[in-house]
């Protein structure tokens, strides 16, 4: 219709006439909607105002008087309307106003100042919202399943779900089982059998437990102010973490926050506001931390907290230099590997790889059935991990438990066996690699006089030499997949003092065995399913509605597919996340960026404060996870109590962790209480095509299942309320609601080609059909192994990063896998912490640091938790706390668990479920002991990411019985020229704890 009207309206006069008709129709529509929908009527009654819509030259217009929920209108120009919308001319007006909505036309008109909006923010925002609501009234969503129960859909970090709601309350959350209309999954034929995954989704424990988290007694239901905080008087910052809170109104809270934003900018200049989030948030492309949050802060100018590549460290700072893969943070691409592995592979080595604990990432238990197929086929499995992990427990196979942070010695010893026994692919090494001879000399001891024999390795990693030889021979003779990390490049061994060298050696080993040849590749069936790689739906890292092209992956696809206003942070200052306490307490620090566009992105050292910028004075924190997830986290507690931080606001769902250190707390709601849209396990960005972990691609309409609890609001709405007070609400929201943003994003995907918005909104999900077998993505690295141009469906590396022809070879300078890294030769060839080829460098905290090791003889590892995801699922009185491997209830308190070998326990008089103090010079944590054979003597195991921080005395200075093991881990980076975490190099002692030694609750 729009086209037809525009075609007919050839002259300006006709266009004006049509504009006038549209304006009249608007009054009719408003009143009709109000008559038919009480909710709308109620909203319309909120304001009695006059709104003018007109052309800028006043040649045509109509004004609307809204009185007690009824709209009357009059042709012409009002003298003093409360709100005015102005159009440059009738052409622009019709482009914007005629349905269907044309966001590109609207954005173009806004950027060219062809639309004007006049009036106070409060009223203009309200009016724009009314126009949206008018169009959305009466929409149908969810499926009626009888007995007053409606089935909605939602999505989480641990899988998509059906949500059953009755009388406005969630009664049930289940995995999604597809119906008969949904497409069948793929089938792989391998070794005479056919393998097909089930027609449903799996969910993680921390997803199954959402009902208890949504209705948690720890929810923050009202805005709160610390009782002894007075923004106009005494702030008592030393009492952060100690004093209690009082309920205040939203107006008071928002006024305080908005005034503080203005004040610090006025008093100190741009960049005095620092903001950071946890690594994760509740799922949803529009609601994730890379979306509304960036859009808001870019409008006020801010100092971002720069994230380290937290789960990838050694791959990013180390492995990347050998094979590029920078856009995957140094971890490998994974296309087609499930089919290749099922058909060809004879052995899988899981090395620091526990996909059963973490579901790769975001993928629940989708990979489990595929590993079960491998087991059924009799494919040999080996597990190298200081902990007898859940993948080893489920599938069995040889378990080798190296001393933590010594894995590189084991890798070098394997290489030694291959070299001395001729068990590697010499032709591949010759054709596809660079610098092997130099590394070979190092392995054989020609450089330093130490042959890296399996016997030498025994003194480091402690694996019997005969077992290393046996493993090396199996590996050298069998087509082997190396699963290094829970999904490739993700997890524990890369997060210790030798994490770089370990990850580097993983690449070198695979280079020796012919990476990319049939049956020889990276992964443990966690990635690489034959789903449709070409159907477009954005991951959260594409920035949602952020408009931030510089700091998200928005520019790749989403920005051009979903016209929206770009946003820019004008502050050239950032603080490395792991150095935030030093930045606040000492006033200066340095960092290296997580900039994965290219290998050299990580070399650009930055300083805080940046030239010409003030030190930060205000901290706007999003959630409260850092005590559990950063390193040496007593530092963070001390930081919060510093006079250097004049104001702290925390926007959080639950009253936990850092939320208890804020001056003002803004209550956010969960993703089940707001609109959003997303895909199962699709994060985009660093793990492009991460949905290739799932068996069925599922796009999800995240229904607003229930109203926000208490007075909590969505992050979008909180930011919009602040934006009203800071004069940029319309720029922030673009005048539309969250549901409209969902539709706008829906239109930007490939979904409209296959399902209407109405159907998607009602059913709640769409299963992307798998492609026919002939159209599946090729196997990663196969083209490289065969000397062909890159044929896998990704745009990494960027064209400029190829040395010869585009798509030919890898991202490295030689285009080959480099045993001697060109990038490191260029950057700092003499760095003893990161030599140009991988070498064995003893950990700076470990069995070679004699004095410390004498005092703290146990090595603590703290991998990603199993039943909780970062701080989600833990604490909050969630049901997860009652899982005996998660927390243990002792004397009425749920304690975090530390796992200790029976010999170490006996030597310390520790029995199962005894309370123990785990401690070192950095602090102490009270845990429940689990006496086990799943760790070797000398190693203790716990998980990171406790949501609860509960110091028994002064915050930052006393033992924590909440379970924040990261209080104990070192804050030292893996190497100085990095911004990295080395949490798994951590020496501790464990002793029995008498509960009466500390405070109670």
């Amino acid at each position: 219709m729009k086209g037809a009207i525009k075609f007919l309206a050839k002259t300006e006069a006709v266009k004006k006439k049509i504009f006038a008709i549209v304006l009249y129709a608007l009054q009719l529509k408003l009143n009709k909607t109000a008559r038919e929908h009480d909710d709308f009527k109620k909203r319309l009654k909120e304001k009695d105002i006059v709104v003018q819509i007109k052309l800028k030259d006043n040649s045509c217009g109509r004004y609307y008087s809204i009185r007690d929920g009824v709209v009357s209108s009059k042709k012409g120009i009002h003298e003093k309307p409360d709100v005015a919308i102005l159009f440059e001319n009738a052409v622009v007006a019709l482009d914007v106003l005629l349905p269907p909505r044309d966001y590109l036309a609207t954005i173009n008109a806004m950027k060219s100042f062809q639309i004007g909006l006049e009036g106070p923010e409060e009223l203009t925002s309200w009016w724009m919202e009314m126009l949206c609501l008018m169009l959305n009234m009466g929409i149908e969503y969810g499926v009626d399943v009888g007995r007053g129960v409606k089935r909605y859909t939602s999505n989480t970090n641990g899988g998509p779900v059906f949500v059953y709601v009755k009388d406005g309350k969630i009664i049930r959350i289940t995995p999604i089982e597809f119906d008969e209309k949904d497409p069948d999954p793929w089938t792989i034929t391998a070794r005479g059998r056919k393998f097909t995954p089930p027609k449903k989704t799996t969910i993680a424990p921390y997803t199954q437990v959402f009902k208890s988290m949504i209705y948690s007694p720890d929810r923050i239901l009202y805005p709160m102010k610390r009782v002894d905080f007075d923004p106009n008087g005494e702030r008592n910052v030393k009492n952060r973490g100690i004093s209690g809170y009082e309920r205040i109104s939203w107006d008071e809270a928002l006024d305080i926050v908005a005034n503080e934003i203005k004040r610090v900018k006025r008093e100190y200049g741009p960049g005095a506001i620092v903001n950071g989030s946890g690594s994760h948030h509740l799922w949803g492309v529009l609601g994730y931390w890379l979306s509304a949050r960036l859009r808001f802060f870019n409008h006020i100018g801010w100092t971002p907290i720069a994230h380290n590549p937290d789960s990838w460290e050694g791959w990013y700072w180390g492995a990347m230099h050998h094979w590029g893969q920078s856009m995957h943070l140094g971890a490998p691409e994974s296309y087609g590997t499930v089919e290749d592995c099922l058909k060809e592979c004879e052995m899988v080595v899981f090395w620091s790889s526990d996909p059963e604990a973490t579901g790769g990432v975001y993928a629940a238990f989708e990979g489990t059935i595929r590993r079960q197929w491998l087991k059924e086929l009799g494919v040999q499995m080996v597990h190298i991990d200081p902990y007898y992990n859940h993948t080893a427990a489920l599938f069995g196979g040889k378990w080798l438990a190296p001393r933590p942070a010594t894995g590189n010695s084991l890798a070098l010893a394997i290489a030694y066996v291959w070299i001395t026994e001729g068990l590697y692919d010499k032709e591949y090494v010759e054709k596809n690699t660079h610098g092997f001879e130099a590394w070979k000399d190092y392995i054989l001891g020609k450089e330093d006089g130490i042959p890296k024999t399996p016997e030498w390795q025994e003194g480091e990693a402690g694996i019997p030499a005969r077992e290393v030889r046996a493993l090396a021979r199996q590996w050298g003779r069998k087509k082997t997949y190396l699963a290094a990390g829970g999904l490739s490049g993700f997890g524990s061994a890369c997060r210790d003092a030798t994490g770089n060298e370990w990850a580097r050696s993983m690449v070198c080993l695979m280079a020796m065995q012919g990476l990319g040849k049939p049956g020889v590749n990276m992964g443990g069936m966690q990635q690489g399913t034959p789903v449709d790689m070409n159907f477009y739906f954005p991951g959260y890292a594409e920035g949602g509605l952020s408009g931030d092209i510089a700091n998200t992956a928005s520019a790749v696809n989403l920005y051009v597919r979903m016209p929206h206003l770009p946003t820019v942070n004008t502050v050239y200052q950032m603080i490395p996340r792991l150095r935030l306490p030093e930045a606040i307490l000492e006033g200066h620090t340095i960092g290296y960026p997580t900039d994965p566009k290219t290998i050299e992105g990580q070399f650009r050292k930055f300083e805080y404060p940046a030239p010409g910028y003030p030190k930060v004075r205000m901290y706007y924190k999003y959630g409260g996870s850092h005590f559990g997830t950063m390193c040496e986290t007593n530092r963070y507690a001390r930081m919060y109590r510093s006079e250097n931080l004049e104001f702290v606001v925390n926007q959080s769902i639950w009253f936990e962790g850092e939320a208890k250190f804020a001056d003002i707390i803004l209550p956010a709601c969960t993703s089940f209480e707001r609109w959003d849209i997303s895909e199962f396990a699709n994060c985009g960005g660093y793990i492009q095509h991460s949905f290739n972990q799932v068996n069925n691609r599922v796009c999800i309409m995240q229904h607003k299942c229930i109203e926000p609890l208490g007075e909590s609001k969505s992050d979008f709405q909180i930011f919009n309320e602040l934006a009203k007070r800071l004069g940029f609400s319309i720029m922030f929201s673009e005048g539309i609601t969250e549901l409209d943003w969902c539709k706008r994003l829906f239109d930007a995907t490939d979904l409209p080609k296959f399902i209407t918005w109405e159907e998607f909104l009602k059913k709640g999900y769409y299963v992307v059909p798998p492609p026919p077998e002939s159209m599946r993505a090729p196997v990663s690295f196969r083209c490289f192994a065969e000397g062909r141009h890159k044929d896998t469906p990704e745009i990494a590396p960027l064209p400029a990063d190829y040395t010869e022809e585009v798509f030919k070879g890898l991202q490295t300078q030689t285009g080959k896998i480099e045993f001697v890294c060109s990038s490191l030769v260029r950057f700092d060839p003499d760095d003893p912490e990161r030599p140009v080829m991988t070498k064995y460098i003893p950990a700076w905290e470990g069995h070679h640091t004699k004095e410390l090791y004498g005092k703290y003889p146990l090595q603590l590892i703290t991998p990603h938790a199993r039943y909780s995801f970062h701080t989600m699922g833990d604490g909050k009185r969630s049901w997860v706390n009652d899982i005996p491997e998660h927390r243990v209830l002792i004397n009425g308190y749920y304690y975090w668990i530390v796992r200790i070998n029976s010999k170490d326990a006996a030597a310390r008089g520790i029995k199962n479920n005894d309370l123990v103090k785990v401690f070192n010079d950095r602090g102490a944590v009270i845990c429940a002991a689990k006496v086990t054979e799943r760790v070797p003597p000398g190693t203790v195991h716990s998980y990171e990411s406790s949501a609860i921080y509960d110091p028994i005395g002064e915050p930052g200075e006393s033992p924590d019985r909440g379970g924040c093991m990261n209080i104990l881990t070192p804050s030292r980076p893996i190497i100085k020229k990095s911004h990295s975490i080395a949490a798994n190099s951590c020496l501790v002692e464990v002793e029995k704890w008498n509960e009466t030694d500390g405070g109670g609750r």
Partner: protein
Amino acid sequence: MKRWHLIIDIEKCENCNNCFLACKDEHVDNEWPGYAAPQKGEGKGWIEVLGKERGVYPFIDVAYLPLTCMHCDDAPCIKASKNGEVYKRPDGIVIIDPRKAKGKKEIVSSCPYGVIVWNEGLNLPQKCTLCAHLLDENWGKTRCVQSCPTGALRLAALSEDELEGLKTLEGLEVYRPHLNTKPMVLYKNLYRFTHCFIGGSVATIIDGKEECLEGARVTLTKDGDKIIGETKTDCFGDFKFDRLEEDSGLYTVKIESPGKEGKTLQVDLKKSTYIGVIYL
């Protein structure tokens, strides 16, 4: 008539606890009149996952046993309820009547499997209902089965004949059969939880270096010359005899390899045992 059976494969259970959590999701804060009053939010649920480590470092394995109401045909809880507070439905499901059973704490201790939970707040004994309220609405499965990601839990409606066939085909067993309660919950690969193993590693010296000895013949005998099992060492020189009874007395392990002097060891088996590295 077909009756409901819960079939649990120990080998496929990885202790994810989705069953425990799905049960909480279905029953906490939800009342299903006639079937169950709400479950407690905190503490023991109506299904729990028991864990068992076998062996000592570095030779271990781990098994998990989801434990819930066995819906026994000869249920002690039914016997303990004098006035029909607990009853068995024709489809096999055992239900504690949430109204009649108020205050009947003795029902809790009647269960030899310990799966009846006392709800202090409601003054009520409670347990798994096999999600009867859902099965009666053709939901087709229990919540624990629906959320189980590995196929470790299955729900099947089986006739007597079908049940017997499945028992033979899959080697299904009753957990703690000596209790004689005729459970309708059956386990596959139960030995992983209830039985033990004898494991070891065989090595030799070649050219002055220790090597794993692959292919060595290992024989397990008991009571003189009764052969319990025979196996060969794998590429790491490891061997394992499984499905042995705990506390089952003296065993003899004989290790032989061509051209080498064999070795014989005695094991007094209490629980799973790793006899260490044996050099030939």
